[in-house]
């Protein structure tokens, strides 16, 4: 009884999701097709409200089509993605049909092809432009200057790149303990046990998913106003992004741990904190270190860019010379950044290999 009810709920949920997906894929295909054939070439912006309404109208139509098609036993892309496991049994005939001859396969291939065609149109791809004599000559001159770096600014570049490395390091160091604590609160297997736990888990996940989707460069803009231009603003930007990223990566490690040691420690009557400390932490500590080193490495790379928006370090220097089109100086800075990134990358991959 209980079992059949849960299965029915799963089927209804899957059917709803299937219909929604098919509806949007269908409406998307029709609209993308129209865009490609030149429809809406004129200024599209004022017509967005009308178009949006039309889009949802078509989506409703497509939802009906999806329901009808599935009723006839033909499986759509939505079904293929969302169908619950117990309905996925395939007949030998179905197994023998190549993907491109199934309905959902054609749906998928059509979507990819249409998206690629629209994409080519939107990016205004024009290879010939690269080969125009004038433009080509200018580009070659720029490369020439970049490749004859002005080494006289090397000492200053080194001082600044060292600053960048330290900015990245401090951002990582501050982020680690915060992310460490958060990682357990954001792991479903640790928090899923009670209603309160699950609420904390869900709220934290949402907050950090949102803050992680804000790029460090945007944080740097905010902090360069809040904390004024300079290394401190850059460090804060990297720190915020690092906390969100590390907490997410750490919590995924926690979710992937083995249950055995947990049962082993739980069976002794240990407290919740002891179970985490003795059964969970030993399993996650090495992957944590590995991710942390990689984070530092990533932060150094990001920090070089943050200077453009006032985040301190070598990026500020790069922005200055770039703004004055002083290419030999830019070449020198690019060389320094490349060398540091390469060294950091080698260092972090060595550390991670040693830990494995």
């Amino acid at each position, binding site marked *: 009884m*209980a*079992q*059949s009810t*849960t*299965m029915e709920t799963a089927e209804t949920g899957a059917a709803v999701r299937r219909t929604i997906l098919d509806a949007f894929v269908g409406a998307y295909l029709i609209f993308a097709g129209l865009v490609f054939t030149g429809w809406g070439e004129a200024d599209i912006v004022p017509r967005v409200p009308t178009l949006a309404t039309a889009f949802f109208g078509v989506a409703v139509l497509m939802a009906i089509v999806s329901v009808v098609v599935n009723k006839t036993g033909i499986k759509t892309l939505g079904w293929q993605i969302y169908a619950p496991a117990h309905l996925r049994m395939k007949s030998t005939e179905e197994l023998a049909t190549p993907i491109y001859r199934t309905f959902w396969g054609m749906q998928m291939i059509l979507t990819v092809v249409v998206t690629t065609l629209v994409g080519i149109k939107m990016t205004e791809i024009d290879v010939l432009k690269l080969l125009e004599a004038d433009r080509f000559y200018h580009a070659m001159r720029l490369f020439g200057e970049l490749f004859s770096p002005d080494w006289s600014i090397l000492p200053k570049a080194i001082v600044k790149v060292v600053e960048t490395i330290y900015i990245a390091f401090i951002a990582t160091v501050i982020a680690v303990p915060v992310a460490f604590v958060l990682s357990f609160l954001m792991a479903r297997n640790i928090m899923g046990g009670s209603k309160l736990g699950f609420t904390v888990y869900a709220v934290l996940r949402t907050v950090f998913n949102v803050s992680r989707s804000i790029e460090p460069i945007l944080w740097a803009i905010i902090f360069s106003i809040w904390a004024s231009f300079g290394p401190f603003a850059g460090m804060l930007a990297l720190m915020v992004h690092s906390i969100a990223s590390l907490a997410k990566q750490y919590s995924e490690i926690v979710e992937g741990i083995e249950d*055995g*040691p947990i*049962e*082993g*420690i*739980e*069976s*002794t*009557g*240990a*407290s919740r*904190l*002891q179970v985490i*400390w*003795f*059964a969970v932490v*030993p399993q996650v500590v090495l992957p944590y270190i590995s991710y942390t080193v990689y984070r530092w490495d990533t932060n150094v790379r990001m920090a070089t860019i943050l200077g453009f928006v006032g985040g301190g370090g070598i990026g500020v220097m790069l922005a200055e010379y770039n703004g004055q089109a002083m290419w030999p100086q830019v070449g020198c800075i690019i060389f320094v950044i490349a060398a540091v990134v390469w060294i950091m990358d080698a260092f972090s991959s060595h550390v991670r290999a040693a830990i494995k």
Partner: protein
Amino acid sequence: MSNILSVRNLVKTYPNGTQALKGVSFDVKRGEFLVVIGLSGSGKSTMLRCLNRLHHPTSGEILYTDKAGVEHDIAQAEGNEILKIRRTMGMIFQHFNLIPRHSVLNNVLYGSLGSTGSLRSMLGLYAKEDEKRAMEYLRLVGIQDKAHFRAAQLSGGQQQRVAIARALTQSPDLLLADEPVASLDPATCHIVMDYLRRVNQELGLTIICNLHFLSLVRQYATRVIALKGGKLVYEGSPSDIDDKWFAQIYGEGAKEVHIN
């Protein structure tokens, strides 16, 4: 002899609808070596985990009389009470469930986590007495010379002996063993079973042990219960399991495998 455990109508239904236990009742006498047999999926592991509340029973009673003679219903216990009950029951597992990167001695000391404060244990400050006891039990299972090795460096049989020492460090009333020899080779398997028997006979510890092999059951059990599809289908002495019972428990066409 008095009952240490009295299980009544134990039911466990998992959230996905699987009914692992469909009303199981049996008694466990103090000091016995009770073996639970049955196929994989018969509910043995679930049953054992309900006894120390690693899993939470859906309904039924688990009446447990502790050392002091006080009776508890484990099925109704909540929060800290569950932790207290677990402290009086040691448990060993098919895959040993040690902390592989930690030392053998530390793994054994984890048996005293329950009686050590969280902060003290996290700083590694165990009572001198606990440390003495941990070494003593390591000696009992014959691996005192491996005390400072990492648990992962030991063989399967040795790891299971560490797990026994960990359980003993809890000074338990009852030892739960879930397929303790299922991932060991036949020779090692007897060594581990012999230690369990020693613990049962010399320390007077009550043991409830899930096993696959009937030949082991005949050799070690003082009493047997059998589960099939979440129901109790046999209860009695190991020597009374004849071919007819064997076919009933394991299904027609099953053949007994001997392990010597």
